[in-house]
């Protein structure tokens, strides 16, 4: 549990934007991921949360080398994956798999379930002929699908079943590490719990390590051992699940956690929300210094000039914030401490914050308003 399986150092993934027909000139670059350093420990589930467009999916894809990172290292068992050619990488791809968000788009509509699950076995020459067929049926049973459906097409299955097909495909070559890219976001609430339980069972059975990407804090809390919070291509905070909920050090994490509704209506009435100011800046032109300073309720002049280091503020608790050096500044903006209490098992609203004029603390009127989508939240705050 303590040994790092993956060591990520200074990971950067920039997407260049070109202009011009024949002479292509790079005019700008999207800094989707801009310097991440963290470890993923053997056998753990690392939850990666952040709002849409903060680079969490890109991080996952860059780690398994679906995108070749612009800069940085991804060391898997001591081998730096970024240095390998695609040929050298091929045998390692067995160990690094991915489960996708969209169970409708991630399966080729012209292939049968059997062919889809057999594909990794073919590519890595793990089983031939009858053995391959048996292995496919075994995998279908493992993920809870009836092996008789082997000749059916993806469109004949429901969303949850399709996600099971995706999981079976990822499991086929016995990987050690799986990037789960919002595997439950596209599913019905009732199905989400089933898939999460399946994933937990599989983790115990096959000794898997997960990077669980989500924008749903409650789901992440349920499944993760440790949680990393991302903001605009940077890591804001990383700590054990309970620790990050009870003792969030980064102002962004504070705001995120305060947005999670509480299922007990009595407690929910006392929940104080920190509503962040403004919109997420563009990754084309990220702010100077700390990328969060434009929206941070505590920000002072140092934050705009100096990039905060991602440091271990408390044992096992990493954070990138100048407040660690100057804790007395916390609370100067007048924002109250958020209430961190028990969160619902599976579902919660997205963590996206509505744009408002000024930073202020919002008392959630009732559970219904807090539980509903962004639009109604805006009505309440304005």
């Amino acid at each position, binding site marked *: 549990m303590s040994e790092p399986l993956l060591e990520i150092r200074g990971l950067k993934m920039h997407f260049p934007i070109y202009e011009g027909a024949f002479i292509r000139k790079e005019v700008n670059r999207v800094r989707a991921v801009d310097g991440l350093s963290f470890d993923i420990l053997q056998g753990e589930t690392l939850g990666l949360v952040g709002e849409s467009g903060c680079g969490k999916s890109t991080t996952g894809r860059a780690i398994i080398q679906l995108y070749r990172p612009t800069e940085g290292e991804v060391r898997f068992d001591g081998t730096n994956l970024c240095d390998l050619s695609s040929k050298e990488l091929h045998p390692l791809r067995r160990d*690094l798999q991915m489960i996708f968000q969209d169970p409708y788009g991630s399966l080729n509509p012209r292939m049968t379930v059997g062919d889809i699950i057999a594909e990794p076995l073919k590519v890595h020459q793990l089983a031939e002929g009858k053995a391959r067929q048996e292995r496919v049926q075994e995998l279908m049973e493992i993920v809870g699908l009836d092996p008789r459906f082997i000749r059916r097409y993806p469109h004949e299955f429901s969303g949850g079943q399709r996600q099971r097909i995706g999981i079976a495909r990822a499991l086929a070559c016995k990987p050690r590490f799986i990037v789960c890219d919002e595997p439950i976001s596209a599913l019905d609430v009732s199905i989400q719990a089933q898939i999460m339980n399946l994933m937990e069972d599989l983790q115990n059975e096959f000794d898997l390590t997960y990077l669980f990407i989500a924008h749903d804090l409650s789901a992440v809390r349920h499944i993760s051992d440790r949680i990393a919070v991302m903001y605009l291509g940077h890591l804001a905070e990383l700590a054990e699940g309970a620790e990050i909920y009870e003792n969030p050090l980064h102002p962004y994490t504070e705001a995120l956690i305060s947005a999670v509704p509480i299922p007990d209506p009595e407690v929910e009435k006392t929940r104080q929300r920190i509503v962040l100011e403004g919109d997420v800046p563009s990754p084309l032109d990220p702010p100077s210094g700390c990328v969060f300073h434009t929206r941070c309720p505590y920000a002072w002049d140092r934050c705009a000039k100096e990039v905060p280091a991602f440091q271990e503020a408390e044992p096992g608790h990493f954070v990138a914030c100048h407040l660690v050096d100057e804790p007395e500044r916390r609370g100067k903006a007048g924002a109250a401490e958020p209430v961190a209490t028990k969160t619902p098992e599976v579902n919660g609203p997205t963590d996206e914050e509505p744009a408002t004029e000024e930073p202020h603390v919002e008392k959630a009127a009732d559970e219904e308003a807090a539980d509903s989508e962004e639009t109604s939240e805006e009505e309440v705050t304005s």
Partner: protein
Amino acid sequence: MILPRFRRLFALTTGGPNKFSFLAYFGMVFLALVAFVAIFAPWLAPYELTHMDVTRQLEGPSADHWLGTDENGADVLTLMIFGARVAGLVGISVVSICATVGIILGAVSGYFGGAIDEVLMRVTDILMAFPGILLAILIIFITQEPSLIAVIGALSVSGWAGYARLVRGQVLALREEAYVKAARALGLPTRKILFGHVVPNSLAPVIIQATFGVAGAILAEAALSFLGLGPQDMTSWGALLDQGASYFLLTAHLAIFPGLAIMFTVLSINFVGDGLRDVLDPHALTRS
């Protein structure tokens, strides 16, 4: 590997809610008839291809010569039956060549993008800027040898661009699909991703365009023959039409029958194409 995919595709689509229309079936039956006639021409034709009876020039339809005779006294029905072979050969080979080249180049162009894409798309721009028939005339004029091969080659040179464009557009959209990313994450070689996942999903519109392409090629061959640039050693519908046009005021049948043959064949192909478009509608696939 390709064949079972098509069979599955066919089973999937015909088993669904979309069925071929009456016109599509009419087209298929007519085309089957043309194909049958073309294949068994030597047995079906009432006369030898070389048969000429100079005493019976430019006669109208009669019991001996159902569709009359031409200026050399040859039987028009015989000439037309053999002409179906040229039409079929030109139509099928031009479309096969164009579609194959177009699919490969379009897929590569769309999938890899960058400089390859830029160069290939400018080439297709140039090819598509000229009317295809003009380019074909130019090519045959340069080669100085109006044979069947030259006609097929000339029509193929200008014809692939449309397919390449079509496939490129499809591939541009498909390469971002999650299942393509999944295949990449599994470590599939690019060639297999492109031709195993991307291209098969881009084929439905290509199949439809190909059916129309057969009609276009037959018409283009007829036009080239009409202009005297068709295969000289073989009788084709276009050549007969050309011949007939010279005698149109004297006796119209010589132009009318080949004209009708061309018209009905092209019409049938278009009916089949329309039918395929309805049946291959991507929504038919996702509905179970």
